[in-house]
């Protein structure tokens, strides 16, 4: 539990730091450019953020924090839903600005501000007077304080107003606000920031020319959400620092939700958090999923039951079967021996992860630049492929190797250099040799280059010879010879070397990129229950309803309900029968017919034990059951009462569900 909270925290920290990093450059620009404020024009920044609306909140929070720290204490965040009218907007604005003010100034004038806050008429003049008083105060007050603050803030810090979701503001409010504030721009240095989800054209569509000419707009493009995602993946999944890992299918589900549904990094993180929770909740051995330092302690505190759990893991069983018999017995009976072994295995796993990540990056360097990207452009695709099965057995891998054998030299050299860098950075100890080998390749390439230059000299000289002979016939002949010789000399040294390099990479891949399911004890750190995840994040309520209505046997395991194909037994729950019957109707349903049909079905299902007196009774009950089922369908939204004809209901769904 502890670890998992740590993880979550770290995760968010990562994101926030990332956000602030992306926006720091905006700040610099903003500061420069607010200096050249023009006459009656409000400097405006339009931030194009993309469609992942849910992430914007975080972005803006980061942005306003940074702004507050670096440029101005006066930042107001406005959202469309708070501001249905210009009055509310001003209120909100004032409130936020005054609150900022309290934060910056000492508490002495808090009470006066608070008193005034309620009474103040929210208007531009009052805002201006407030602003003047505040700036004056900071000027006159304690010069010592001013010194350190002026290093951060300017003499007259601008008031920054951020409109979080520009598209959903009503145009009138925006126009009014802009026109009003443009008249006061001299007294009040105002900076607007628009958050835009679609395209910058929207500003001109929302605001008429007369208004937009009052703005001095500069456009900023935020990073695309895919890039956010890849940074997060880089930081979370492809490090050996986090002991917790995701299985291939889970990753696939998360990526699919991201790519096909919302593009929201926040949701991705939510999914990841859910995975963590699920894993720690469902896997009893997840205690062992911790940093390497703690492992030893935890392994030795395992109880007997937990040891048994370990023994039950399929991957551990496979491992045991491979050992010789004496060791097998020891592993299965002796707890302390098991613990030692477990610790060793966990360490192995850790080392495997370290190696895995760096080799994966190397491979990515190679494959990401190949034409058509047989193994995917992004490292996440490669990662998925490697996790899923043995990557070297796939066709894509074959073809990418083929393509890699056709790389030209400069590319190859730069790639090798990148690989060397990656491997140097990685903490794995086994890579010394690999690095050496790669370096050797590099030097060989350099040698080749030297040779090649000599060769070129030769060829140049031969060309000179050619130039001497102006005879056309001879020229042709020599050219043919040259061509032939080139063809016959199948493998140049360079090509040989290239083959060697590719083969070597292949060898590395085969050695280190073994899918995690093949490792012993992978269950401890890998989360693989993708269906659970999918059920919780990407649920399909309609499908569930449909199944329940069409095929009640799925849920109620009663033999009487079992039926095949599209049919339904007449013993099904009332609502299922009513639903089935209503599917047969068009847009309007006559209740009487429906009731009759229903009672026919139900009567047939029940035993014909009827004597006349009880028949009436039964009839009433059936009627009541019908009423209940129909009103349930109404609650579920399948039908609604209709006024078109007496005693009819209208069907609300079209087709199957």
């Amino acid at each position, binding site marked *: 539990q502890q670890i998992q909270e740590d993880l979550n925290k770290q995760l968010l920290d990562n994101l926030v730091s990332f956000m602030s990093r992306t926006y720091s450059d905006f700040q610099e620009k903003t500061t420069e450019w607010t200096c050249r404020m023009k006459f009656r024009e409000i400097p405006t920044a339009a931030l194009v953020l993309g469609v992942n609306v849910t992430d914007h909140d975080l972005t803006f929070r980061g942005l306003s924090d940074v702004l507050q720290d670096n440029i101005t204490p006066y930042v107001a965040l406005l959202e469309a839903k708070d501001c249905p009218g210009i009055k509310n907007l001003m209120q909100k604005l004032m409130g936020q600005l005054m609150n900022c003010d309290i934060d910056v100034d000492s508490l002495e004038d808090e009470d006066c501000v608070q008193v005034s806050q309620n009474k103040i008429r929210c208007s531009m003049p009052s805002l201006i007077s407030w602003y003047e008083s505040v700036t004056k105060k900071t000027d006159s007050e304690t010069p010592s304080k001013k010194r350190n603050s002026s290093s951060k803030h300017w003499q007259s810090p601008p008031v920054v107003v951020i409109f979080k979701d520009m598209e959903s503001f009503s145009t009138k409010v925006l126009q009014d606000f802009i026109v009003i504030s443009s008249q006061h721009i001299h007294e009040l240095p105002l900076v607007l920031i628009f958050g835009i989800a679609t395209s910058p054209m929207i500003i001109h569509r929302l605001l008429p020319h007369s208004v937009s000419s009052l703005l001095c707009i500069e456009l900023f493009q935020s990073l695309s959400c895919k890039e956010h995602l890849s940074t997060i993946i880089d930081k979370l999944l492809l490090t050996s620092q986090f002991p917790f890992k995701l299985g291939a299918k889970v990753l696939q589900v998360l990526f699919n939700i991201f790519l096909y549904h919302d593009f929201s990094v*926040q949701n991705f993180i939510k999914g990841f958090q859910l995975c963590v929770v699920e894993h720690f909740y469902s896997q009893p051995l997840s205690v062992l999923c911790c940093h390497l330092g703690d492992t030893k302690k935890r392994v030795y505190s395992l109880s007997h039951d937990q040891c048994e759990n370990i023994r039950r893991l399929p991957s551990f069983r496979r491992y045991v079967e491979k050992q010789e018999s004496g060791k097998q017995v020891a592993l299965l009976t002796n707890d302390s021996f098991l613990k030692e072994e477990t610790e060793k295995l966990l360490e192995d796993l850790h080392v495997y992860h370290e190696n895995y990540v760096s080799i994966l990056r190397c491979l990515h360097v190679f494959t990401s630049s190949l034409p058509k990207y047989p193994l995917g452009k992004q490292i996440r695709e490669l990662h998925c492929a490697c996790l899923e099965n043995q990557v070297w057995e796939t066709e894509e891998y074959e073809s990418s190797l083929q393509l890699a054998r056709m790389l030209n030299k400069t590319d190859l050299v730069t790639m090798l250099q990148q690989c060397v860098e990656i491997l140097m950075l990685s903490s794995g100890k086994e890579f010394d040799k690999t690095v050496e080998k790669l370096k050797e390749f590099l030097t060989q390439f350099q040698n080749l280059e030297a040779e090649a230059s000599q060769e070129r000299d030769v060829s140049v000289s031969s060309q000179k010879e050619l130039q001497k002979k102006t005879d056309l016939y001879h020229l042709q002949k020599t050219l043919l010879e040259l061509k032939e010789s080139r063809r016959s000399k199948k493998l140049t040294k360079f090509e040989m070397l290239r083959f060697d390099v590719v083969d070597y990479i292949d060898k590395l891949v085969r050695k280190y990129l073994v899918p995690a399911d093949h490792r012993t004890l992978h269950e401890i750190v890998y989360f693989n229950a993708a269906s659970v995840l999918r059920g919780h994040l*990407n649920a399909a309520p309609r*499908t569930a309803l449909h199944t329940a209505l069409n095929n009640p046997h799925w849920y109620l395991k009663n033999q009487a309900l079992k039926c095949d194909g599209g049919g339904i037994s007449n013993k099904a729950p009332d609502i299922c029968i009513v639903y089935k019957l209503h599917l*047969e109707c068009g847009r309007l*349903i006559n209740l009487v017919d429906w009731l009759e049909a229903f009672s026919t079905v139900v009567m047939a299902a029940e035993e014909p034990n009827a004597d006349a007196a009880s028949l009436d009774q039964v009839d009433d009950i059936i009627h009541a059951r019908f009423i209940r089922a129909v*009103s349930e369908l109404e609650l579920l939204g399948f039908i609604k009462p209709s006024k078109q004809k007496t005693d009819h*209901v209208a069907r609300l769904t079209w087709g199957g*569900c």
Partner: protein
Amino acid sequence: MSRPEGTRSSRRSLHVKFVPDEDVLKHIADDAGTKARKDKAQLSVSVKRFVKKLENISDNEAQEVLEEKNYVAALGICAQDPVGNGSNISGGEVFSFQTPKRSNKMAELASELAQTPEQNVAPDHSKCPEKMAKTPQSSVSSNAWFVFFFLLFQNKKKEFVSTTPYRLRKRLAGPDPYLESESEYSASCSEEEDEEEQKEASTILSDQKTPAKTKAASTPLPRNSLAKKVKEQKMGNLVEEYFEAHSSSKVLTSDRTLQKLRKRRLNQQTLHDLLKNAPLAYAAEIRDLNQQHESLFSKWMLQLHLGFNIVLYGLGSKRDLLEKFRTSLLQDSVHLVVNGYFPSITVRSILNSITEEVLDHIGTFRSPLDQLEFITKRFKEDSSLELYVLIHNLDSQMLRGERSQQILAQLSSLPSIYLIASIDHINAPLMWDQAKLSLYNWLWYETTTFNPYVEETSYENSLLVQQSGSLALSSLTHVLHSLTLNARGIFRLLAQHQLEKKDNPSYPGLSFQDFYQQCREAFLVNSDLTLRAQLTEFRDHKLIRTKRAADGVEYLLIPVDDSTLTDFLEKEDEDV
């Protein structure tokens, strides 16, 4: 486009009034694909062009289909979850559109269902082909279809004289793409023919097939453009069928009304009693199901504490489940239960109960937004405050509005408010956009309980239940008897007028001016003002409703259904 159509239909001597473009294209493609046409050489050029175009498109479309499939496969990558997750069937099965049925189909199906034997082993053969078409994806039924048409085709076309109305024919044309897609191998399975032949005689009389369809079935399609055609055809049909079903103002349903059924209407209480006496089917299985869900309680608790909120979906009332959750785990903590199905619940009342009962704040707020802000502040200040909110039916009429959902979402995003809610409506997820979803931070749980919605539906104004809230006959007479004779006369006038117009569904009511005129003629009132005073009295007793139309004219309406009104008038006549 019209030219090939004309030639084709003349050749086959068909009586089709309208054929969608796709159909035409397809038929042309058929002919070009099977054999070179000996006649109409000049036509074949244009035909080929069509085909070429078609195939170009078809490649793209096939690609698309493939991608879609990939996507579906990727999402359903681990769909084989053995235990109780019903949401794993593929989308096509669920969302496949179906052909609308004739008005008497329901009765047919009912009798079939009634006839189905206990074990229900071989229902396919006892059902008529239309029934099979309902599951177009299953190959068995498609085979049957094909064989059926094949036979028809062989038996010369004379048997099916096209007496079917056009609408019906069009409807029947629905499932034929599936049929084509199966045609290749279904031709070989001849053992079904025997069975089908027996049925033939009976079915041929009951439902006539369009010749166009048999023709489509008999000409095999070129393989490569199959996928696209199936899709295109399907789309075309869907769109047409949809508009066909919805454009025609006339709906064919029987005219029977509940009134004619000698059954008395049940009121709420008797209904309740009756249902109580009726045994609940499959109680044991339902209990098992619920026990499964109950085992998740501690997990829910953990996840709520980690900042997720939980939403429950699935058929059946989830009220009992939530109640059980509440009594077993939330006894010692502060919690708020919101009965969303209650017709007068509002966001405001939810917020009020939070501020007044949880936060002990006395005082009112100007707007829900202010209130929300206050709550947010309080919860942020005091981190020890924790509140569990249970909402039954988050998707109910009163709470499904945009603004209420926004407020609830913001409320639920507070870290120390834990929300667990249930939804029932099929379109409930549509009320949340991305922003709200991220505020809610839902975890979805499927909890199909099959419990009857007892509480939830008790507030619904079902057509079949006698309304206790609205006017009943007795209350109508009671109120009127306390009025003056003139007033009764006025009401009678209005009622009679309304009954005369009862066949007009868009009857707005009697306009005030006309009513005044009539009342004057009957010597019931002498001035505008007296009538108005009288009407005010009616309105206070909820006997009438006034509505102002767009042109400012006031319309008067008695909000009672016609049958009650008739009864009332009859009774009045007896009295007088």
